[in-house]
């Protein structure tokens, strides 16, 4: 640590009980001493603020360059699709920000992406790569739908119970990969993706004609009861309370990860499992906890979609939110604030994709391409930062 002297160390700013630094004139009055200390204290605060600003500035810069790089890299593909980048980006803008409905649709798409991004980020903080959000959101959607349809109770209680049911189902869906990882050492990437396919099958089975949850429309259930709906908050658009819930949950995730012992254990296991073991932290336990918390967030992703956007469970209601979530979490550098920003960006893409299809003839698959490019840029960033370090004369 090079600037240890002006950052708030473990002992906090100096207090008057500290020994005086050598060379300090002995004849200082108490008032003078007080002033010196105050200015030192404010210097520490200022340095901390500068550190924070630089950190945020760097993160924002990396975020912006990653997004820009992915959009530029996607441009040749718009030409391959028989359009041109300008038409494509204009259509994207109009579809996502050009008016009340587009803005609302952006936020509607942002909601599940924020939950999903948090799900991936929380697991990643503990060193786990949950790419099974797509399956967990199906499990959560089914559970929320069932509670929303079958139960009868008062409005706020009903919604809350349905959301909790969704979270619980997602957590249980993640328990299988968690257990296989903790006790069998099987990589969670393989098992979470296999659980996705199982979830898709269960979903199809339940809502098919003659299935247990068959509704009046094909491949969908009956609507949930009015008491279980997440209320609309910006009439006449579809925007619902889910976005508020998502932002609150993001705040809770930030508090948990950075301000509680549990979150600290997650980060320690994620950063250095050996050190965690020497500190008496059971990595198996953290694996199960982190995976289930991640699965619960994945379940909520589906639950808000079912209770807020669609008001019923539909087979394949997600256009791939679970997979976009991977890019959202990585683009957001695993920090809840970054994840929120990244989910807004991918919300723009999702909302703009309809217009993109209509005006530029580009299918929604382009969003998956951009997701891939964003993740690739995140992966390649390491090379750039290493190059920069080398050119500054630093070690590798």
């Amino acid at each position, binding site marked *: 640590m090079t600037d240890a002297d002006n950052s708030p160390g473990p002992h906090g700013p100096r207090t008057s009980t500290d020994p005086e630094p050598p060379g300090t004139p002995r004849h200082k009055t108490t008032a003078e001493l007080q002033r010196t200390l105050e200015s030192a204290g404010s210097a520490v605060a200022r340095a901390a603020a500068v550190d924070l600003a630089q950190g945020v500035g760097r993160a924002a810069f990396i975020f912006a360059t990653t997004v820009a790089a992915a959009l530029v890299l996607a441009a040749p593909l718009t030409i391959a699709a028989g359009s041109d980048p300008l038409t494509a980006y204009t259509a994207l803008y109009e579809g996502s920000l050009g008016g009340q409905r587009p803005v609302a649709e952006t936020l509607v798409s942002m909601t599940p992406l924020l939950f999903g991004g948090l799900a991936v980020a929380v697991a990643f903080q503990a060193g786990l790569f949950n790419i099974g959000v797509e399956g967990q959101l199906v499990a959560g959607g089914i559970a929320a739908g069932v509670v929303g349809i079958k139960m009868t109770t008062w409005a706020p209680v009903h919604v809350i119970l349905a959301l909790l049911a969704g979270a619980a189902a997602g957590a249980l869906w993640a328990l299988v990969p968690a257990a296989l990882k903790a006790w069998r*050492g*099987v990589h969670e990437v393989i098992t979470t993706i296999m659980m996705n396919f*199982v979830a898709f099958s269960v979903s199809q089975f339940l809502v098919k004609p003659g299935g247990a949850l068959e509704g009046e429309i094909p491949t969908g259930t009956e609507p949930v009861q009015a008491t279980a709906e997440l209320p609309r908050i910006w009439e006449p658009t579809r925007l619902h309370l889910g976005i508020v819930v998502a932002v609150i949950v993001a705040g809770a995730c930030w508090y948990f990860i950075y301000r509680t012992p549990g979150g600290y254990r997650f980060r320690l296991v994620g950063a250095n499992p050996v050190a965690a073991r020497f500190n008496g932290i059971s990595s198996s336990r953290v694996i199960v906890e982190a995976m289930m918390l991640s699965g619960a967030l994945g379940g909520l992703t589906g639950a808000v979609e079912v209770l807020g956007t669609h008001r019923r469970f539909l087979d394949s209601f997600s256009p791939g939110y679970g997979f976009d979530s991977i890019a959202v979490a990585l683009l957001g550098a695993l920090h809840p604030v970054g994840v929120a920003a990244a989910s807004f960006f991918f919300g723009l893409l999702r909302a703009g994709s309809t217009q993109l299809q209509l005006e530029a003839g580009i299918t929604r698959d382009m969003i998956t391409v951009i997701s891939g490019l964003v*993740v*690739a840029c995140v*992966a390649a960033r390491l090379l750039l930062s290493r190059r920069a370090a080398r050119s500054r004369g630093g070690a590798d």
Partner: protein
Amino acid sequence: MPEMLDIIDMNWVAQGIRLSVPLIFAALGGLLSERAGVINIALEGKMLFGAFAGVAVTWWTGTNVVGLIAALAVGAGIGWVHAWFSITVRSDQIVSATAINLFALGVTAALIPAIWEGGRANTPTVERFRRFEVPLLSDLPQIGTVFSRLSWFDYTALVLAPLVWLVLWRSPFGLRLRACGESPEAAASVGVNVIRTRYTAVMLAGVFAAMGGVYLSLVQNGLFQRGITNGRGFLALAAMIFGKWRPIPVLGACLLFGMADAYQLRAQSKSDLPVELFQALPYVVGLITLVFVGRAVAPAAIGRAYVKD
């Protein structure tokens, strides 16, 4: 349940082999790459690229052999990109592989309407590789059925597993490759070029996975459809782990998954059990086998980037 046992005949065996072949190619590719120390979660994406390139080039040239060669070349190319990320950039191997998977899924799907007009989810059909009857063997009672229902791809897959074993455990190249996966520093100290060996392994994995993808498009379906691999790249990884990174047990695991898949397909037509749940059978079997695999022992240096001093 007598009708559930009727399924078990030589047609089932042949179909089981056919369904396991894409897994065999991909799993052996994954094995090569992971034995050299590079985690290969990107098999799914490489299969998609191979499957797509095979159909696209066959459609352009009208010759499926050219399509196959192009697909294998594309597989090697994607393998190179994957190697560059994992070995040269030394990025997180899981993250870079996920990028390849997402990109492959998106690009292959987005290119279908771009190349072939209309908003469809699959390409037109092209000339497939046909099955053939093996002279004499196909005349045998019972087992002859199997020898008349396979293509040369299937025989290649079955022979490839012992071949991979031979190369990895009985050749200097194989020894070097495995050394890079167990202790790259030790390998380097005796003069092995770790970087080059790993590049070779990951590119070969790309070729193998592309072969598995081509099997899905040019042998089984005669077309490419959005997300045609449907998780097989991951199922192949499960088979690789279940087989504990050893070619012959991996072959056995792939055959097990293939037979389970064939069983569910045939059971669908013969019973009124729900089709939807049966479709999940290969994945459920995959998950259950992982429960019984015992603690999975991967190569020691897997996922660890090698830094040359």
